[in-house]
């Protein structure tokens, strides 16, 4: 018997009709409640006694247009810093996580250093690391001191490397010991086992939280402006000081969100895919 031969029973037809009515009803309820809430919000905000003043000082189209080039130029710095710092922090985190798995007495100092690093930098507020590196280190007046921008980037890499190392470590530990046994039984060395069996599975499993940390990093990248370099937030601040109007901040905020959307979308997609893989789907 093929699927096409099937004639639905009376009961099935009644059930299908009932479900259709329910669907229409749900859509109507969702639409009207959204409309009601939206109207309420708009009326509350625009009807507020200070609305006109807020609109002038936060949402002035002319000032937004004037501030845009400077804020965009600053944003370009954010983007470059993000790419470099994300790559650096991911690499550092991976290396630290792998060092912490090494067994044997020879590696004791390496393990201890790696553990000490993750404890320190996960506990230390980013702002303090940033000030220590960008204000303290240049104070040493050593020869060949890297520019403040590089030191600021280094502060981000060190701080986020500590978090990412823990994420990678959780991934490594989630790989079942029987996978190691299988790899070693084939004659693979510890390094080959890590490289070809453990790390590929670990990284796949923790890709969603890793990307989530990269999204967080993209917001913190702006903090290097505290040490001088002009990023999008700092550019907005300068524009605000010149016009006595806060619209440039809104411009910077909108640009940050626009920048984050693709990254967040990728994160969601990866999360969904890995959830599906783990539940046995394709």
């Amino acid at each position, binding site marked *: 018997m093929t699927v096409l031969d099937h004639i639905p029973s009376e009961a099935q037809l009644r059930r299908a009709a009932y479900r259709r009515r329910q669907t229409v009803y749900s859509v109507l309820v969702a639409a009207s409640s959204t409309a009601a809430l939206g109207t309420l919000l708009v009326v509350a905000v625009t009807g507020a006694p200070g609305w006109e003043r807020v609109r002038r000082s936060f949402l002035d189209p002319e000032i937004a247009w004037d501030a845009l080039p400077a804020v965009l130029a600053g944003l370009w710095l954010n983007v470059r810093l993000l790419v470099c710092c994300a790559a650096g922090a991911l690499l550092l985190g991976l290396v630290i996580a792998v060092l912490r798995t090494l067994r044997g007495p020879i590696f004791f100092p390496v393990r201890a250093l790696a553990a000490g690093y993750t404890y320190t930098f996960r506990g230390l507020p980013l702002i303090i690391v940033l000030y220590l590196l960008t204000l303290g280190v240049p104070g040493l007046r050593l020869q060949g001191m890297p520019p403040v921008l590089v030191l600021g980037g280094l502060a981000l890499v060190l701080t986020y490397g500590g978090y990412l190392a823990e994420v990678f470590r959780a991934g490594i530990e989630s790989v079942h010991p*029987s996978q190691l*046994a299988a790899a070693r*039984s*084939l*004659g*693979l060395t510890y390094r*080959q086992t890590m490289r070809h*069996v453990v790390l590929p*599975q670990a990284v796949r499993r923790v890709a969603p939280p890793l990307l989530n940390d990269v999204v967080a990093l993209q917001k913190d990248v702006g903090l290097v402006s505290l040490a001088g370099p002009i990023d999008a937030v700092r550019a907005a601040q300068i524009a605000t000081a010149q016009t006595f109007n806060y619209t440039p901040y809104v411009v910077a905020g909108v640009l940050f969100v626009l920048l984050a959307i693709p990254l967040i979308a990728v994160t969601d997609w990866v999360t969904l895919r890995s959830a599906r893989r783990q539940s046995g789907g394709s």
Partner: protein
Amino acid sequence: MALLRCRGLRKEYAGAVVLDRLDLTVAEHQVVALIGASGSGKSTLLRCVNLLDDLDDGTVELDGEDISDPRVDADRVRRRIGMVFQAYNLFPHLSVLENITLAPRRVHRRARAEAEAQARELLDRVGLGDRADAYPDRLSGGQQQRVAIVRALANSPRLMLLDEVTSALDPELVGEVLAMIRDLKADGMTMVLATHEMGFAREVADEVCFLDAGRVVESGPPEQVLGEPTQPRTRQFLRRIIEAGRL
């Protein structure tokens, strides 16, 4: 000459003695079946022979070489021994072909094309040629276990260790894996296999060893150990197996 000779093996886990003065000798081309209740030490013995676990006493010789000497390079030893696990332990992120060629390429440094040609030939021989590019989660248990056996064979081992390779399988899939082991025996492969399939042990093994509390209590030809056991503990074990309908 003996290919594998274990003398006086001892292994403890947190004070519990799991292997106790255990002796085992396996000649080349011989098939030895390890039987015994759950927890009697079969898996531990196989893991110790493959140097996946450290011994607490005793020696293991492979081809006359003392491989339990700590100065021996364990990775080089494991290349000569193939191991298959109860839970298959295929690498889920690699395709069937990549699972099989991993060791030939990374350990034996074979060229990719050469390793893949060998893998495809082995797969064809066991009727899995069309699954080369599939991932393990797309295969049935029986297919996964056959791939695991092929993966171990791709190293051209001198000795195969099989740890209850059919215990995780649905009954109707057991046959295809046993058929493969039968073929291995016909090819002259030396094997040590832990098993609960008494009928299969009787058919394929040259020698059956009954383990109890980490010792070989009784060993000999299958007809003798399974048919006319002399030790009371062997009889008791076989009686339980028969009651469970497994013989």
